[in-house]
């Protein structure tokens, strides 16, 4: 089923290319909807069969080049399942959002790449070996590049190039870290004398075979890649540019899923592979995250471009996500995973809204446009709603994630877990209350900039650009849009809104309960492995031992052949 989810969008992508342009969006809609339906079945089946003993389901492995030990294997745990669900949900929504925005003669290019992108994203979350993971991880860049470069606004070429090169450079460095780990595990633990690409094996052995210094270097390398993707301050500057220039669907996917690839990779690789280094350097990462939260938040406040504002708010929000991850406790990591989903929903929706507005007025400058409350009441209602979700209002989806991330950072304080001043609510971890406090100030900043945006965009007297979509100046052939949202546009927003409320009021039943056992296992694993890294001598010895074993094995083999 997982493979189906990867192949089906590709098939539909081909179909889109083969059919006439007018049919492209219908094929894309059909493809993404079908995937969503299958995905819903997948998610349903996953949680129906979920048990703490079997963290991964729907596993499959296909020998690709057995001689080189290369397999393509997939499988999903609860976190991956939820993120796949998010990806698939955003599929039809993105198609719906692009319905009129993409001119028909270029529709095939757009929807074809959109479907390819979806396949790649599902592939990243479904990957159980480095080959699939990294291939898909990098392959997301190409469709996004095309979408920005071909369908973006004025500054799109620069944005696309920067997006591609920046994230690609980072990923290459991350690849180096991953490959080194694969090599170390291969030569020191599994004895294949090559690279171990299987993620489960890597996870099992990496922390045992990498020395403290190696772990630190691998952490640095992986962070270079994943922090750019997230993006973490100060690696974020590609994001506002890319978001601003990307078409609406591109922004939605970028914010909704692509950024999560970074945090997901951190969850999947950084934490379990190099726990010792993570423990040691978590405060540094957390400080970067907190700087990002406040710094990007303040920058949002003075933006005039509303899309850029939302983009910077992503930087700020993802800071919470990283902070929660590096709190290394259940609350933080749970919060972080929740954040991945919830940020995808609420910020995705904000981008949709900005996109709908842009489609009508062809400007994003808040000095030119604003006060739409009376003119576009439905749009405004959604805007306020999703802003509140983004601000972290309890009862909506933003809150559980934000609260748990902050709480994770706050209680992650090893000094509190023992001794005279023992705090029962504190957990083992590298951060502490001050981190929680600093992150908490970010909540204030978030309120400031998002409400400032609402104040400009929704409230106040109506401001419209001098030339906007009127019957006379609308570009020929383009569909005429009504003043307020159409039913199609509402239909793209409504599912997100419903999920926002459901995830806000029933987070335990829908999300936390689903991922609890996996996250707890992950945290326990990191806790257990973070204590002692092997010394250089031990690592070297392990390598020698395995080499000898291998040589002995080969000699035997030769000896067996010779007589």
């Amino acid at each position: 089923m997982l493979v189906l989810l990867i192949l089906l969008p590709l098939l539909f992508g081909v179909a889109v290319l083969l059919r006439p342009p007018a049919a492209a969006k219908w094929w894309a809609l059909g493809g993404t909807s079908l995937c969503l339906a299958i995905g819903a079945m997948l998610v349903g089946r996953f949680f129906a069969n979920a048990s703490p003993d079997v963290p991964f389901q729907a596993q499959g492995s296909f020998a690709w080049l057995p001689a080189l030990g290369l397999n393509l294997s997939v499988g999903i745990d609860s976190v991956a399942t939820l993120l796949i669900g998010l990806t698939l949900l955003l599929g039809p929504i993105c198609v719906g959002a692009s319905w009129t925005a993409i001119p028909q003669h270029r529709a095939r290019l757009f929807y074809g790449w959109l479907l390819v992108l979806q396949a790649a994203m599902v592939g990243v979350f479904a990957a159980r070996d480095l080959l699939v993971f990294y291939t898909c991880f990098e392959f997301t860049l190409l469709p996004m590049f095309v979408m920005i470069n071909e369908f973006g606004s004025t500054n799109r070429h620069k944005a696309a190039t920067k997006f591609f090169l920046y994230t690609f450079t980072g990923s290459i460095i991350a690849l180096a870290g991953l490959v080194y780990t694969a090599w170390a595990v291969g030569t020191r633990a599994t004895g294949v004398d090559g690279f171990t690409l299987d993620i489960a094996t890597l996870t099992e052995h990496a922390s045992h075979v990498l020395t403290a210094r190696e772990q630190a270097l691998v952490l640095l390398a992986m962070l270079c890649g994943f922090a750019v993707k997230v993006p973490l301050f100060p690696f974020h500057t590609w994001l506002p540019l890319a978001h601003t220039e990307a078409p609406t669907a591109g922004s939605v996917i970028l914010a909704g899923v692509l950024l999560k690839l970074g945090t997901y990779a951190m969850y999947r690789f950084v934490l379990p592979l190099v726990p010792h280094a993570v423990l040691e350097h978590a405060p540094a990462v957390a400080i970067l995250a907190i700087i990002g939260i406040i710094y990007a938040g303040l920058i949002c406040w003075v933006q005039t471009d509303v899309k850029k504002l939302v983009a910077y708010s992503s930087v700020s929000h993802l800071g919470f996500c990283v902070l929660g991850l590096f709190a290394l406790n259940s609350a933080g990591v749970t919060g972080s995973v929740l954040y991945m989903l919830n940020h995808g929903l609420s910020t995705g929706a904000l981008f949709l809204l900005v996109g709908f507005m842009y489609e009508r007025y062809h400007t994003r400058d808040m000095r030119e446009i604003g006060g739409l409350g009376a003119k576009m009441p439905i749009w405004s209602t959604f805007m306020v709603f999703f802003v509140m979700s983004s601000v972290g209002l309890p009862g909506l989806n933003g809150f559980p994630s934000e609260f748990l991330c902050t709480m994770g950072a706050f209680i992650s304080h090893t000094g509190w877990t023992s001794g005279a001043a023992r705090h029962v609510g504190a957990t083992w971890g590298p951060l502490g209350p001050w981190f929680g406090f600093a992150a908490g100030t970010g909540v204030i900043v978030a309120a400031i900039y998002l409400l400032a945006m609402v104040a400009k965009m929704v409230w106040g007297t109506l401001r419209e650009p001098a030339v906007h979509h009127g019957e006379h100046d609308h570009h020929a052939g383009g569909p005429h849009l009504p003043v307020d949202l159409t039913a199609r546009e509402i239909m793209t927003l409504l599912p997100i809104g419903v999920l926002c409320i459901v995830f806000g009021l029933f987070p335990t039943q829908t999300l936390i309960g689903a991922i609890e056992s996996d996250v707890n296992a992950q945290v326990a694993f990191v806790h257990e492995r973070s204590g002692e890294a092997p010394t250089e001598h031990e690592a070297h010895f392990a390598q020698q031992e395995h080499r000898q074993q291998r040589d002995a094995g080969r000699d035997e083999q030769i000896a067996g052949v010779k007589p």
Partner: protein
Amino acid sequence: MGVSMTTIMDAILSAAVAQHGGEAAHAAVAASHGVTGPLWIGLIPLLPLLGVVLVTLLACFNEKSKMPAWISVGLLAVSFLLTLFAYLGWNGHDAIHLKLWDWIGLSWGDLRGQTLAAGFAFYFDGLSLLWMLFVTGLACLIGLYASEYMEHDAGLGYCRFFAAFNLFVFSMSCLVMGDNLLMLFLGWEGVGLCSYLLIGYFYKKKSAVDAGMKAFVVNRIGDLGLLMGMLLTFTTFGTLQYDALFNQIHTGLTAGGTPLSQTWQVWAIPLLLMGGAFGKSAQLFFYVWLPDAMEGPTPVSALIHAATMVTAGVYLVARMMPLYLADPAHIALTAVTWGGAITAFWSATIAVAQFDIKRIMGYSTISQLGYMFAGLGVLATTGGVFHVFTHAFFKATLFLSCGAVMHGFAGQLDMRKLSGLWSINGFRVVVIAMLIGCLNLSGFPFTGGYFSKDMIIAEAFVTPDSVIAGSSWAGWLLLLTAGMTAYYTFRVFFRVFVGPVVYEPGEDLHAHDDHEHADAHGHGHGHDDAHDHAAEHFHPHGPKWAINLVLTLLSVGCILSAGLYFLGDHHGWAGGMVHASSAVVDTHAVEGGEEALLFGQPPHEIMFYISAVFGFGGILLAAWFHGPKGIAGLLIGGRTTAAEVRMDPIAKALRPISTWAVRKWYVDEFYHLVLVTPLKIFAHLFHWFDKLIVDGLVNFFGATPRVSSDAIGESTQTGVLHDYALRMVAGIAVVLVVVVLVLF
């Protein structure tokens, strides 16, 4: 999951009871043996939520009638009745529990403190019941009032108003009824949102939008304290649930086993929570948002910014009283006392100088909230809570009366432009209601406000200074403030509601149709022309039945609330309610049994006289300075016009001070200078830093290879085949050299 969590909770509770058998009996006060309530209790908050949905649906169908109001009022009435039933069915001492579902539940171990369990659950004890009674009751009445008040906005705006209104009641119910701190936080932020939406109801007015944002942001600053306090509570006590928390506090130990008195958390947590409370209740540094919040429609001001939401902070402190009492040094309580007392006095000084009657009521609300906090601080929880209750009624009455005036005079609120409402047809009910409200507010003998305020001030003298530092000084400050309160209250009454009939309509003549309004402004004739033109044809219209009915009911409520003082055996009905809640204070245990004296008498007895004197004094001053000639001015007034009073020369003489007071001591400007401007500067700096340095570095690194490769390419890319081949061979040679050197 749910099952496991309840089991854990039960285990913790039983362990606590077993371990400290002695205190367990004492802990019964905190209602550890709660009873599970009937499911319909859950309807109390959920009915308003249903109201939100229904009103939103009406909005979708573009309903133009008053249907949203009737739906809201009906549902709120049912909600109120349910609360009443719950109260009547309550056994009077045990807390009622009702858990609907797990809201945020997370467990990472079986030990204590390894489970975060925040159910969407309710906890009913005396305190919550008391609050719920006036929240739902007043919400219902004010909803009815608003149905008429907002009628000019029928349509989308009307729906928007009532949706937010219902959402507010839902949030407030969650806040008050929640059984853990997270539920409280849910309500806390929810009411903040509704407050934001409703303050900014007239969203085309920039001042209203700014006020809404200011309210939300200032509240958020306080919320940071609440959030941190909550998290620290969790780490210290391992739970956020009231029952478990109070039981733990009663053991005198943290959940880790350290004696509470030796930890720093015992004062840090209450102080942090106090930050949240002060934010929501507009105390001390945080008060600035509340006066601006008067930009909202008056029913909103009455319900949210006077009667209910702003008392959430008081509720929080009262609810967390065991935590405040756990500190033997009472650091947090002292801070609460002085925070309250100073705020009470400070805002009274501003109120005496204002001319906008709604703003005066706003400042008066801040001042009264200060009383409540001071009451809690000096261990007079009963007084504080009773004052919340009486204040809710009389302040709602006052606001609604002001609202009726505003409604009738097209938004006119300037007391210099209004006079003699008594003599204007149709405003009699309003004036009487206003009078009753004013008497309550100024602490006129035998009114509800009189009793509740006296309890607070007297307790300030009763509580020794050794327990709460400077509590008697706080008492004097509060007494002085009582006099000022009487003065500014009756200043409004004497100037606006009695005396010669003078009026000018306000600017909201076309409030419901801003486009025309804006056009009028933009016209060549200018603002004044249009204004005068409108004024010529202006006739004040008195309130209709809904407003009059509500005002009448509220006035009756105000009067009756005084009677509550004589009910029950714990200093009145409110005392009884408090006694059956976590807010109960065993004053004797704290004070050591020594009876304090004031002027040689027990403070509680003599305070009736002293405060009456201060109250009368204030009223008489107001009458002298602002009262009209004749009986309406108590025969000592001399005002003949709306604009000129005897106070004016004095204010002129006190020029710098009076101007500063009128300008609200320039606090807003100060904040702007000290907080907002630097933050904005930082934001701009960061923006440029991001653009030039952070992004610049990236671009630099991007440009380096390009520039350098251009330079290299210029010299090497000759296009001649031999050059490439030679370089290739040389390259292979270099690689081989390396290989030979390394491998051989």
